[in-house]
């Protein structure tokens, strides 16, 4: 009987030790590292955005994207024909609402688009700015749930709950954080009713020393609609002139 008790105690101690080894960091620490992950100084890429409806009909958009760090972004539409030449320019601000401009060739004017809503769609896709990771780290409380692998990559599974008063579409988000690179490989978004609304998956590729996304898939289960973003011809740290990121440069495709 005594032997049994000792064995049990030993097993519990081993389990606890293993747990603390795996969960060496707190959820908050992990998420902070995700937020401050080193990103390219600039990124150029071609993006194919596939909007897939419930009948699996696909509408394709082609865009050229330039990014400066992770705060400034400029995009030009190459297709479809009716929006070709339209462009979008966004500056992310930490302390106030983001600045956004759009150039519409049919109108011949650059217009400012103001919106405080984080639930606005990103380029009319199933991604909202919030889903694209445009979340303030201080707005959430985090809890480490477990470890799991996604596509063979070891991940932490972390639950993010919005603090009261935070404007969000979701009641909780569960993220699979790749332990090696501190980037999200999968996220589940739960609506205010507490049911799973969207699932986002990401595939990463290493370009130079950076791990950058090459494919995002967002599946909106509530409307059975999907958006796939495929990045091609990804170039990083190309020494993009910061002056390009200006409203006046929206009218021509760089």
């Amino acid at each position, binding site marked *: 009987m005594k032997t049994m008790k000792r064995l049990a105690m030993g097993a519990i101690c081993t389990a606890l030790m293993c747990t603390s080894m795996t969960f060496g960091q707190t959820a908050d620490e992990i998420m902070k590292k995700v937020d401050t992950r080193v990103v390219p100084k600039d990124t150029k890429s071609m993006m194919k955005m596939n*909007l897939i*409806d419930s009948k699996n*009909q696909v*509408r394709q958009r082609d865009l050229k994207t330039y990014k400066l760090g992770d705060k400034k972004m400029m995009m030009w*539409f190459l297709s*479809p024909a*009716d*929006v070709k030449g*339209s462009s*979008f320019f966004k500056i992310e601000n930490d302390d106030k609402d983001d600045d*956004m*401009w*759009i150039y*519409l*060739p*049919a*109108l011949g*004017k*650059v*217009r*400012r*688009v*103001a*919106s*405080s*809503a984080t*639930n*606005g*769609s*990103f*380029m*009319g*896709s*199933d991604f*909202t700015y919030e889903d694209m990771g445009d979340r303030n780290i201080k707005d959430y409380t985090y809890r480490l749930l477990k470890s799991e692998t996604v596509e063979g990559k070891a991940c932490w599974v972390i639950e993010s709950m919005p603090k009261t008063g935070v*404007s969000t*579409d979701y009641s909780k988000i569960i993220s699979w954080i790749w332990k090696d690179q501190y980037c999200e490989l999968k996220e589940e978004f739960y*609506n*205010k*009713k507490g049911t799973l609304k969207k699932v986002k998956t990401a595939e990463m590729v290493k370009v130079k020393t950076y791990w950058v996304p090459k494919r995002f898939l967002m599946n*909106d289960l*509530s*409307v059975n*609609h999907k958006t796939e973003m495929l990045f091609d011809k990804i170039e990083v740290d190309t020494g993009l002139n910061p002056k390009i990121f200006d409203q006046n440069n929206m009218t021509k495709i760089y």
Partner: protein
Amino acid sequence: MKKNRSECIIRSYVTWITRHPYLVIVSAFVITAVLAFFIKNLHMEMDTDRLLPQSHPTVVLGDRIKETFNGKYIVVANVEVKEGTIYNKAILEKVKRITEKFTQLPGVIEGNVLSIASSNIKDIRGTAEGMEVNQYMENVPSTDEEMAALRDRMSHDPNYSGVLVSKDEKSATIILDFHNLDGIGGFMGAKDALDKIINPEKDANTSIHLAGSPISVYWLGHYAQNMKRVFPIALLVIALLLFFAFRTGQGMLIPLVTALLSVIWALGFLGLTHTPLDIFNIMTPILILAIAAGHSVQILKRYYEEYGRLKDNKAAVIESTTKIGMVMLVAGFVAAAGFFSLITFRNLSMKAFGVFTAVGIVSALIIEMTFIPALRTLLSPPDEKHMNREQAHSIFDTVVEKISNLIISRKWTGLIIGTLIVLCLAFFGLIRLKTENSPSSYFHENSEFRTDLKAINTNAPGAYIVQVLAEGNEQDIIKDPQSLRDMQKLQEYAASLPDVGKTMSIVDIMKTINKAMHSDSSEYNVLPASKDLVAQYLLMYSMSSSPSDFDRIVTPDYDKAVITIYTKYDSYDYAKKIESKLNDYVKENLKESHLKFQVGGGIMYAAALTDIIVHGKIKNILQISAIIFLVVSLVFLSFYAGLLTLLPLIISVLVNMGFMGLTGIWLSVATATISAMAIGLGADYGIYFMYRFREQMSKGKSWEDAMTETEKHSGKAILFVASAVALGYMCLMLSGFKLHIYLGILVPLAMIICSLGTLTLIPMIIMWLKPRFISHYEKQTK
């Protein structure tokens, strides 16, 4: 000979029953218990749309609109204040709480919730630099400045002012759209679920109103449930009348037992076979009750007659059941076949009506041929006192004697002229008969439903919708300014129609964006000039909105769009007028359009259902009549007999409809059902009457004596049951629910006309023409 053989079979069968009364009674109880157990399976189909055949064009179109743009069950909630305006922190907090809780209800389409507090309602404004798109009220304004700003923005929004906030600012409206109501307990649960959310928000200054088709159906169902309370009262009155007629307890109870058991059996059968009951079939138990009681009274009357003659209980049971059993089986079979034939209808409600009534009739026949003779054998026979009371001269005797004398006297002119006058009046009424159905009109002016509806029609654009599907044959065709202009024309025309509160489509959004992009200059409150500009505006809008913002108005491919028209009425006539006006406009003004415009959805479902049910019921009447005619002709081997049976039925249906025309009662789903019911009832009367006439003739009686005897026995029984059922149902006139009032008028009218028609016209024609199917029996005995 043939008749004797079948009589022998029935006689030996009834004799067997009287020898094994306990076995029969126990078996009947077991069957009743089993079927009563299955009543719990009975499912009430409240969604009247599911009763429509799925291939019906309105259903096909409505389902396409539903599939493409989501939603179908619109509920409108209106928060109204007595003092002040809704621009008050406490009130707006209520609106926000209600909106949030509504949005979280299962089945609600999040993107289709319209409210000043919902996330998809955006304030699109032009600024010096461009455009601002913001949720109207993400948080309730906390300062006076913020409140004033919100008020200013909303009051200047052409799309939502007068819709989400009333022009007088005393009420805010929340419009909900449900995929389905399964998650909140169906139609009957929906109102409770909504009430749970709104009731805590009501106070002395705040009233909250609910309307919309699920609410209408809830109230219809609610009042239909009242039937459960009214049914026993009607039953009690019928019982009292039977007591008055027979003046014995048995005379009162036996027909009621048969009637009630038949209803239980029929309901149990529906439960067993999972046939759904719907609000149009809720009156069917009354029909079964009346038919079953009718058969029972005929046998009971004969029993008293035979007992008086034979003075032996068992012999009287055998004799009466044998004599009447034959004709009852024929009459029952005729009616059951007629009703069962309704299974050929595509409409579920009609099928259920047919099966329900046919099973009820067959149950009555089985009970009358098994349980009742067995019970009768065990019951003590009537003593001298009872017999005397039963035989005592009553008002019924006076009536049938007067009728007999009139027929014998051959002074038929009065009768014929009277019938013709009634028929003329009926025809005059028929011309004025209007097909119409408006669920709201069935409710009392002061009912919660009507007051809520009135408030919503005053404060909000309306509680009902009609939708126009604009469909092109290629992607992005909706972005073509010509398509948008066509939609705009139709929308403007729709807005000019009476009792249209508001129209909504992508056109409004495009105009608003165009205006915003030109610094809110009102001269730009027009559609953009090029397709590219439309596309680019939409792209731009999508960047500050949620992707589902437009799901309710346009497809992602921009090949289809919908115009939603809010109306204040749900009536059939109104829906039909709107439909034809819109279609005419399209034919005249938009025939060159790239888009195909189709009117459907919302109240068009109810209109289609009225069309189908009303026309279906008319077809019911014709089909049942044809079967009655054929079977009766076959049984009596005479077309005369078939025609004679039909005569009182046709007159009764004509009078019923004519009366409705004269008094302004609409031919609706409910009233058409009553006419179809009358047919099933009247057939029995004629068959009993003619059988008895023939029986009397075969006993060697003269035409006059045969007629007098038939009137005295069969005629009196017919009069009994008709007046019992008629007076029973007159009780319903006390109910505040107009459907019950109509029932209380129309059922008695059908009973009176049917019974009087049978008692006067059938003998008159028999005496006049001496048809072979009766005179044949005269010759046989001579």
